[in-house]
């Protein structure tokens, strides 16, 4: 898997699971957003692991 892909996924996840996205989704739906973002992150990473070549 390529380094760039990992770093991209990591940065995306870091942003998605921190401020300001937490502030944007703040409210009673925040747990839903957090779990959805978390699950999506795992899914994206699993997908990237399958399709990205080693590197």
């Amino acid at each position, binding site marked *: 898997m390529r380094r760039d892909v990992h770093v991209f996924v990591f940065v995306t996840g870091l942003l998605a699971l*921190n401020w300001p996205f*937490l502030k944007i989704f703040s409210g009673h739906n925040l747990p839903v957003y957090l779990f959805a973002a*978390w699950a999506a992150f795992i899914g994206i990473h699993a997908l990237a692991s399958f399709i990205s070549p080693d590197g």
Partner: protein
Amino acid sequence: MFQTYELFLIILGYMLLLFLVAYYAEKKEKEGASIVSNPYVYSLSLAVYCTSWTFYGSVGKAASSGLDFLTIYTGPTLMASLWWIVLRKIVRISKKHRITTISDFIGARYGNSISLSALVAIIAVIGITPYLGLQIKAIINTFTICTGHPEGGRFTGILITFFLGLFAIMFGARRLDLSERHGGLIFAIAFESVIKLAAFLLVGAFVTYGLFNGFDDIFARISSSDFRTLLTVGGESDVSHVKWFSLTLLSMMAIMFLPRQFHVSVVENSNENHIKKAMWLFPLYLLLMNVFVLPVAFGGLLLDISPSVADSYVLILPLSHDKSLLTIIAFMGGFSAATAMIIVESLALSTMVMNSLVIPALYGLSEARSFSFIIINIKRLVILASVFSGFFFATVFGDFYSLVDMGLKSFEAVSLFALPFLAGIYWRGGTKKGAIAGLIGGFTVWLYTLIFPALMRSGMLEGSPNLNAVFHSNFLSPTALFGLHGLDKWSHSLFWSMTINCLLYFGVSLMTRQNEEETRQAIAFVEMLSPERMPAGRIQSIKEIRNLMYQYMGQEEGSRAFDRLLQSRKIDHSNVSDRQLLALRNDARKVLSGAIGSSIAALIMKDTIVLTREEQRELSDSIKNMTSSLRLSRQELSEANRQLAGLKEFSERIIESLPLGITTIDKDGRINYWNRYMEDLTGIRKDSANGADIRVLMKDIQPCFLGPDIQTGEFLCERKSSPGPESPDDQIIKIYVSPFKGYEKGYVLAFEDITEKKRLERELSQTSKHASLGRLTAGVSHEIGNPLASISSLVQELGSLRFDRTDDANFARQSYKVITGHLERIARIVRSLGDFARVGSPEKTTIDLGEVIERTIQLVKYDRKAKNIRILSDMSEGLKIKANPDQIQQVALNIMLNSMDAMGDGGELRISARRDGGQAEVTFSDNGAGIDPAIIDRIFDPFFTTKSLGKGTGLGLSICYGIINDHGGGIKVNSKKGDGTEFIIRLPLVSNGGIT
């Protein structure tokens, strides 16, 4: 409620099951059918991260502060996305260096430092103790809850702790092999991960769907309750965004640097490709593990169970609803989470303590026969000690802190390892001193900002007014260090510990130098995933320079060159300054440039060179071979050059020594070579000739042999010494023009001065002519003698006459006529001889060939042999040729005389001349003896004769051949022995415009 013994039996039964699972896995591994070495078991073993903190503490945290418990799992999820970059590198380094603990890793990175390794081990032991305490506390609490007998909790705690320690020893310290992977243990841990996940999911499902109507119900109720702030981050919530980020960061580091995580993810990794799948399988496990945390926490709150026991909601909720089986399942889930952590953590800590503290201290006893026995038993004691230290922490401080608080203290402690660890594998500049300074500084801040307040809260530090004054000051308050207010305690501690850690690590590293060992290890660690670097990049010593020269130039040559450099720089091996080292390095690069080329030398000396050791060896061998080949090639080339130069000189000498003028010209007639003879021939020096147009330079040579288009062939030219009549200094030059093969449109010109040759030919021709005259002398004298005798007789008769007598007068008149006729005949003979004998001009004029032949026939009739020979001639008229008449007559005379000689006593000589196309053909045919075929090819050779000595010179026909050739004609002979001989001469006729 359960009886104590029942729970003990359940615990023992579970541990027996666990042991059997581990035993089975080990057995399969020994049989070569491992059920451990796969990414699924690897991922589940990583879930040892989920301890009783997760099982119980997350619910407690969610019930007290809301969503921030999630950061403990989202952090590792984020970190997992970088595992292929970071963890793979750590695994590879650890495998290569047989590293089994974090302290080993950090110590090895910084020059295999034992002191640094010991420091890390001490920090780890102190830092992890709260975490172990957390597990013990959770087990004791849940055991108490299940039995309902809080009074026996301490004894139970000791007993459980002892069992856990014993179990850890059984798994990890049965034998002494610090580097061995523990397949059975890992499989048991994976098994426990399944148990705890299943247990939590069952409890979560029970609460969510058994006690409530699903997620929506719970969330709707909590949203409308006083606990709604638990659903938010920032604002009214207790969880600020800073805290969220800090906890995320802490957990990211914890998943990497907790000793047990290092153990399962690095030491127990059997295949680095397992990391690929674990990168999303492990986060998926964490996600599932947390799905029901909020429902359980909110369920407990909504059911009015005290938030103070929220850590135990997972157990209390089924228990309070008389769900004994589910309670036991929940208990065993929590127990499995705690035991997994305790077993692996105590094993990891014991290995760390053994490797970094005990074994270095006992190194002097390594020769003792019972050393292994001592070591294994010390390790067992260390395991027990670490487990009981956790128990001590739980019993002393446990009442003051939640499970999460205790766990986060450990997270903060291990986060100190992140900098020397990560910087150590990505930055070569970090030094041992920097790492030690950073760790001590960070650890001090950790103690001061997190542990001291805990001690104060527990009352252990109360009673000291001075200490209280310091702790409560604005500047040195542990919770607001240097007046930094507004941060939660985790962010506060993390900020200061990391700041101090970073400042000291980088500051000290930049101000101190690595020793050789540190440099080597730094390169080895940093470049692990890259192809390995050669040490040349950071040449730190004179030895490395010498080794490089040996490596690329060979031992002998490299040694000589290196010694020369040292002498020229006056460098002493034992005391080399940086400046000298730099100069020596530059010198070495220059020397290597000379041997292997500047590019390769620069590459070798360059910092960024990236070559594997295999490639380095191959490159070294290749360069040596190339150097050797080049050296050989240079020698061969030098030899070839020398030979070529010799050959060139030899060739030039030949050309310069030739009695022949040689010049070469290009297609435009420009001279590019001019030999010495040309200088002598023309009087033009080489310097003046080179580059000049040959047509201009040779304009005094006539006729001009070079027209606008250069023609190849032979040219006979004359170079007059002065204008006007012929001079002895005039030169006759024969010029050969031929294409210069191998050169485009070039020509080679050879100039032959044949002046002397022509002079000799003329003399020879004259001599031959005289010889012919001599042969005619007898006949001529006879021809002259007869008329003279007649004249003499008549003169005598005339003297006695009387001129008054008529008869006498008539006789006198008749005699006068006769005498006059004789005198005319004599005069004609003398004139013809004189014409033949005189030295004529070499110039060619237009002559009538028939007349010349007829005149020669008359001359040859004087030969005495001519009396018996009938000469028949048949001359066509108007056969004009451009020739020298004397030479043509000489040719004809020689051939006719030879024919007469061949006919001996008599015969017939037929001479004819006729036109044949553009040529005149003269045939001399006799019926003499003929020529022997054996010698017919040699008759034109000079000095070849068949006549007896003194009767012939052998030059006659040779001269004839030369003359005819010189006139552009040809001569051939047909003869048959006994049947006569025929000579045929062909000469070009002159047309109106010149020679045809």
